[in-house]
Structures are given as structure tokens and as C-alpha cells.
């Protein structure tokens, strides 16, 4: 739509309004959903930097067989921390807590979420959990070396700091629950008049499905980690085989949460892609209801497939069969989404701006990740590639290539709206291509050597795997270069970039493109009314979304 510029001088944006406190206090005690979103963004990116550093060190160690830069115990600790940080502190909160907090209320036309103070509490819990994870590195005893999965019985017996790491995961889970609870209530109660369920933007649908998983699945891992904590502290013997416990039961409980958690990570990214594609193709999204329901379907089926992480532990034949079948089923809703995105692009007037590049990168990498996931869903193949680097490649394609690129796409898409600053489009494109090439160089060799038998989490390897490890490590340097270009571009834009108050730089149709840039404190001067579907690009579309604008 032609951006209807709302005069930007006669309001105070959320960045300027400080409320009661000043300086830092006006941020860390703010209950404004936009400020909380930015708090999450900053903390999350700091943890991301730490996680990337650990990943870089691991890759560097693996550049040649034998000891390169660290001893095996350090290596074990580093892959554990890399996993914990990337999963609990980066990918899980990445989209819901950052962009969900910032844009969910705006997208549904509300002034804030349902429980703003609870929202602030959840950020504080997030911070405390993150600090606990960091503290566990420096306490005597050494950082946890169990892998992020904390498998029993090793996690009960190792003398490293498993306790603070478990506690960190527990607290972070609580933070995630509060966010989910807040979003479900907000979506049910605070939609603007006229916004029926099927007029909600698709990002809202994806957040809704995600929020339900956060509320329902997280408590299971909460209690499981608590049981391990108690077992370590008092010797209960709930999972310890020496006392009759069943370590496989631990794995079941762990994955009852942790597999749905994968969908907590990916569904919001799919929502972002569903927002970006129609804007940059200037076309109505193809199959709105299918995309909306496929989010729900993924949440539903995603809760039923957890044991496909455990095909080699000796489960019953029935369980193997059922979980393998369900795993194949969960691919269907994901495929529906990919089909609909591509169909939306068909015959669109495509603008290859950075957000769309990242969205296309998402589709490409996620598809590879998804298809290789199906390969592992087949029982016989799984026996061969279980716990090899094939798995590592698969989930990095899904988690980093999918969710990570989704987060970057969202950043490029909403950055001007969030900060009122323009970033350099050309540099953003360079960043994308460097990242994309580095990514594939880093992770694709893992597929190949995994297929050939390279186990995951191994400190050393046979000489025949050397070439793949070498390529992979070089890829990691290119990937990091891409990250530096991308974040350098953003930081430059924040510090020195051109200010913009352009309301609708990309020509979007959802509500966030109708509020001033950057948004004012309570988002809307007057509550808008929705009459049409969210992605009306085909008709002459400048006037029909907001009734008040038409008048």
C-alpha cells in the first residue's frame, strides 16, 4: 500500500517514553511489551554470541584429528554448553519472546499483552536462568559435560556442575511457560473488534500454536529435571538403574517435552515466513486457512512423536512402529506450508529485499532439514545413522537454517519499524550470501561423514573423515564472517543509520504497518477496526484494512 505517513513529531515513541524510572531502570522494570521484547532481543543476542563462540571453538578443535586446542573434558563441556545456550537461551525464546512480545499486541490491535507484569517477570526469570547457566561454568567442579540432554545415569554420577545447569533449564522453562500463558490469553481476549480467528495474521496463529506447546509440554521437562535434581541431592533412585529406576523412562519424559520444543522453535519461524512472503510478492497468501491449521496440526502431531529420538534404546516393536508412523505424518503439515509459500510467490511481483532472501533461505534450508528428518524417521535407516553427525547436520539445518534464518528474516523485516532506523540493504544482501554459503559449507559435510559413520560428540576421529571436518571448519569461519557482516550492518544502522519515520517501508498490510515508526507507547491512538482478511493485495488495497483510515 502507499504508505500513508502519519506525522511523527507529535507523539512520543516507546523508545522515548521512560515512565517512572530513568536510564537502565526505565528498561529493566518496564512492563511495555515492546521494551520487554527488546530486552529479550539484547540478552538473547549476547547468549547467541557466547553460543557461537563455543561452536567456533568446537569446530576449531575438530579441524584435525587428535588434540588441537583443548582436552577432551573441555570439549565435552563446550558441546554441552553450546547446546544448552543455543536451545534454551537462543532458539526457544528467539521468536516468541522477542518478536512475539514486540508484535503480537500490535498485530491483534491491543495496547499490551494480557498480563504485562507477568511478562516482565518472565524476562527476569529468563535472565536468572541464563546467569545460572553461565555461573555453572565457573563454579568449582567444572562445567556440565552431559550434553544438553542430561541423560541418566551419567548426569546423576558425574561430579561436574550439573545441578546449576539443571536449575537453569528449570527456571528458563518457567519463563517460557509464562510467555505462553500470556500469549494464549492475549490472543483470546485482546483482539480488536472485527478480528475474528480467520482474520488474524498468520504469525499470530503460529504464536498461538507455539504458546499452547509452551504451556502444556514444558511442565513435563520441568518435573523431569526436578526429579534428576532430587535424585542427585537425596539419592531417590527414580531413574538410577542401580536402585531399580529406568533410564529409558527418563529419556521418554525428556523427549515428551523436548520434541515438542523443536516445534516451539520452528512454528513461529514459519509464521514469520508467512508474513514476509505475501509482502514481498505483493500477493494474498495462498491457502490462508491451510497455513493456519497446519500450525495447529504441527503442534498436535509434534506432541506425539517424541520417541523417534530413542529408536535404538530397545523399545517395544509396537512403540517403534507407532512413533515412526507418526513421525512421517508430522511432515505433512510442514509440506503444506512450503507448498503454500511457493504458491504465493507464483506470479507475484517479487522484490528481492533482504527479508525475502532470508525467507527463501529458510525455505531452502528447512526443506533439506525436513527431508533428512524423514530419512531418519525410517526405522531401519535410523539404526544406521543414529547418533552420527548426520543427525547433527539435520537439526542444524532445521534449527539454524530454519529457525535461525527465520529470526534473521524477522530482524531484517521489522528492524526499521522497531528502531526507526534504516539499515544498508546492499550490505544486508552481502551478509545473507556469506552466511548462506558458510552455512552449507559448515553443515553439509556433516551429512556426508555421518552417513559414512562419523559419530556425533566425538573428540577425535579416523583420518578418512579429515577432509569433511576441514571443509566444515572452514565453513564455520565463513558463517561467522556472515554473522559479523549482518550484525555489523545493524549496529551501524542503530548508531549512525538514517532515521526513518516511514510507516510502511515494505508495503505490508497487517496492523504493524499502520502504526507510527517507531510505535508509540500504547501502540494505537484509537483502537482500529478490522473488516477484511489480513493479506489483501489484489484489489486496490490502500483503504480497506482500517476503517478509520478510510474515513
Amino acid at each position, binding site marked *: 500500500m502507499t504508505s500513508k505517513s502519519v506525522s511523527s513529531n507529535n507523539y512520543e515513541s516507546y523508545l522515548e517514553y521512560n515512565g517512572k524510572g530513568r536510564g537502565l531502570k526505565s528498561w529493566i522494570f518496564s512492563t511495555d511489551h515492546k521494551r520487554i521484547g527488546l530486552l529479550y532481543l539484547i540478552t538473547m543476542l549476547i547468549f547467541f554470541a557466547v553460543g557461537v563462540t563455543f561452536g567456533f571453538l568446537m569446530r576449531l578443535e575438530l579441524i584435525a584429528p587428535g588434540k588441537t586446542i583443548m582436552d577432551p573434558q573441555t570439549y565435552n563441556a563446550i558441546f554441552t554448553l553450546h547446546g544448552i545456550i543455543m536451545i534454551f537461551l537462543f532458539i526457544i525464546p528467539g521468536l516468541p519472546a522477542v518478536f512475539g512480545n514486540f508484535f503480537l499486541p500490535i498485530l491483534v490491535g491491543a495496547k499490551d499483552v494480557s498480563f504485562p507484569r*507477568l511478562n516482565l517477570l518472565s524476562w527476569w526469570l529468563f535472565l536468572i536462568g541464563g546467569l545460572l547457566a553461565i555461573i555453572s561454568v565457573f563454579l568449582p567442579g567444572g562445567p556440565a559435560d552431559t550434553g544438553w540432554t542430561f541423560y541418566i545415569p551419567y548426569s546423576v554420577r558425574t561430579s561436574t556442575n550439573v545441578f546449576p545447569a539443571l536449575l537453569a533449564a528449570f527456571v528458563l522453562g518457567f519463563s517460557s511457560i509464562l510467555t505462553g*500463558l500470556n500469549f494464549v490469553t492475549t490472543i483470546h481476549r*485482546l483482539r480488536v*473488534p472485527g478480528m475474528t480467528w480467520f482474520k488474524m495474521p498468520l504469525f499470530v496463529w503460529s504464536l498461538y500454536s507455539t504458546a499452547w506447546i509452551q504451556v*502444556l509440554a514444558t511442565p513435563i521437562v*520441568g518435573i523431569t529435571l526436578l526429579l534428576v535434581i532430587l535424585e542427585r541431592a537425596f539419592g*531417590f*533412585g527414580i531413574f538410577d538403574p542401580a536402585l*531399580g529406576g529406568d533410564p529409558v523412562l527418563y529419556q521418554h519424559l525428556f523427549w515428551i517435552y523436548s520434541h515438542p520444543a523443536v516445534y516451539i522453535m520452528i512454528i513461529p519461524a514459519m509464521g514469520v515466513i508467512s508474513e514476509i512472503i505475501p509482502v514481498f510478492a505483493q500477493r494474498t497468501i495462498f491457502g490462508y486457512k491451510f497455513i493456519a491449521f497446519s500450525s495447529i496440526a504441527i503442534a498436535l502431531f509434534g506432541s506425539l512423536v517424541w520417541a523417534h529420538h530413542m529408536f535404538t534404546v530397545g523399545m517395544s516393536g509396537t512403540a517403534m512402529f507407532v512413533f515412526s508412523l507418526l513421525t512421517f505424518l508430522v511432515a505433512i503439515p510442514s509440506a503444506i506450508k512450503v507448498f503454500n509459500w511457493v504458491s504465493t510467490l507464483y506470479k507475484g511481483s517479487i522484490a528481492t529485499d533482504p527479508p525475502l532472501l532470508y525467507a527463501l533461505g529458510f525455505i531452502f534450508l528447512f526443506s533439506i532439514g525436513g527431508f533428512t528428518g524423514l530419512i531418519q524417521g525410517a526405522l531401519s535407516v535410523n539404526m544406521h545413522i543414529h547418533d552420527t553427525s548426520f543427525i547433527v547436520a539435520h537439526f542444524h539445518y532445521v534449527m539454524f537454517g530454519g529457525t535461525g534464518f527465520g529470526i534473521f528474516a524477522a530482524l531484517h523485516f521489522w528492524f526499521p519499524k522497531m528502531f526507526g532506523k534504516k539499515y544498508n540493504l546492499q550490505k544486508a544482501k552481502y551478509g545473507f550470501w556469506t552466511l548462506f554459503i558458510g552455512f552449507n559449507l559448515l553443515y553439509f559435510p556433516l551429512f556426508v561423514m555421518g552417513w559414512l559413520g562419523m559419530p556425533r560428540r566425538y573428540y577425535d576421529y579416523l583420518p578418512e573423515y579429515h577432509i569433511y571436518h576441514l571443509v566444515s571448519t572452514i565453513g564455520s569461519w565463513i558463517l561467522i564472517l556472515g554473522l559479523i557482516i549482518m550484525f555489523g550492518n545493524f549496529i551501524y544502522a542503530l548508531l549512525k543509520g538514517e532515521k526513518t519515520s516511514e510507516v510502511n517501508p515494505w508495503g505490508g498490510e497487517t496492523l504493524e504497518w499502520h502504526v507510527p515508526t517507531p510505535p508509540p507507547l500504547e501502540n494505537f491512538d484509537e483502537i482500529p477496526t478490522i473488516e477484511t482478511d489480513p493479506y489483501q493485495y489484489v484489489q486496490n488495497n490502500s483503504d480497506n484494512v482500517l476503517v478509520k483510515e478510510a474515513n
Partner: protein
Amino acid sequence: MSSIDHSASHVHRDDVGSRLGMWLFLFTELILFGGMFLVYSIYRFNYQQEFHLAAKELNTLFGALNTIILLTSSLTMALSITALQKNQKGLSIFLQSVTILFALAFMVNKFFEWSAKFHHGIFPGSETLLEKSNGEILFFGLYYIMTGLHGLHVIIGVVLIGVMTYFTSKNRITSDNYVRLESAGLYWHLVDIIWIFLFPLFYLIT
């Protein structure tokens, strides 16, 4: 999807939304205990005889008494909300206080029950317990964790209701603004529901 009304965005108070949020929170509590019931069910399935044997050590009388206490406290909690709805502030405060007293009685009872077990040398990691079979060790492990965590929830409930009683006395909870009392009530009833399942599964399987 049901279409509940969408006009709530401009009222600052949204009682339905608050209760919806509270219910969602209760689900997390429910599933937290649900996870433990999962563990319980698997081990009971694997060690049926041992669980029967171990349960003989538990005193049904203690359990039944505590069930009655907790059910009655649930009643007084529900009544206190009705009293407030009828604008009977004094009665409501009285009923809330009675609820707290029942909760404390529950904890005292629990304390004696646990002390008796400890006295017999049955506690996690004790020699008496480690001499028993694996199934019995698991039973008592689960017994301590589940009733302990439930007890923790009772204590949280006591604090929560105590705050509500204070608010009621200071007129911060009134007959036309009592959603916080309702939420505390919902929490308390959930604690009750969990006990409704804990009781037969631990005390009545002999």
C-alpha cells in the same frame, strides 16, 4: 473456535482474561504432577507386587483424615467466594481463615506421618530402605517426592490465601472485584484434586 467477545481490549480490567490465564497456569501444575503420575504408572506396572507390599507401610487413617481435611478446606474456600459475592465481608474473611487453618492441620498431619516413617528408618538413602527390593525403593521415592511436592503446594496455597485474606480485610478485594480471590480459590481446588488422586494411588493399594 468459540468466539468470545473481542471488546475487552479497551477495558483495563478483564476478569475473564485473568481467570483464563489462571486456568492455563493450573494446567502447567496439573501436567507437572501428571509427569510424576506417568513415572508412577510405569513403575507400578513394572513392580506390582512390590508396590502392594510397600503401601502396607502407609497408614490409611492418616491419608483418609487428610483427605477429609482437604475436601473440607475446599468447601470453605468456595463458600468464602460466595460470601463475598453476597457482600458478607466478615464471613468471607472467617471462611478464608478457616481454610488456612485446615491447610495447616493438613501439614501437621503430614509432619507426623513423615516423622513416623523416618522413625522407622524409611527415608531416601537410608539403610533400611536400601535393604528392601527395588520396587519398594521406587515406591517410597515416589511417595516422598509426590507428597512432598504436594505439601509444598499446600504451603504456597496457605501464603496465597493469607494474602487474599489481608486484601479482603483492606478492601482491596471487594464484592465487585474479587477475581484474585477466585484465582487463589482455583489454585486451592487444584491442590485438592491432586490429592484426590494421590490418596488412592498411595494409601489404598494394599
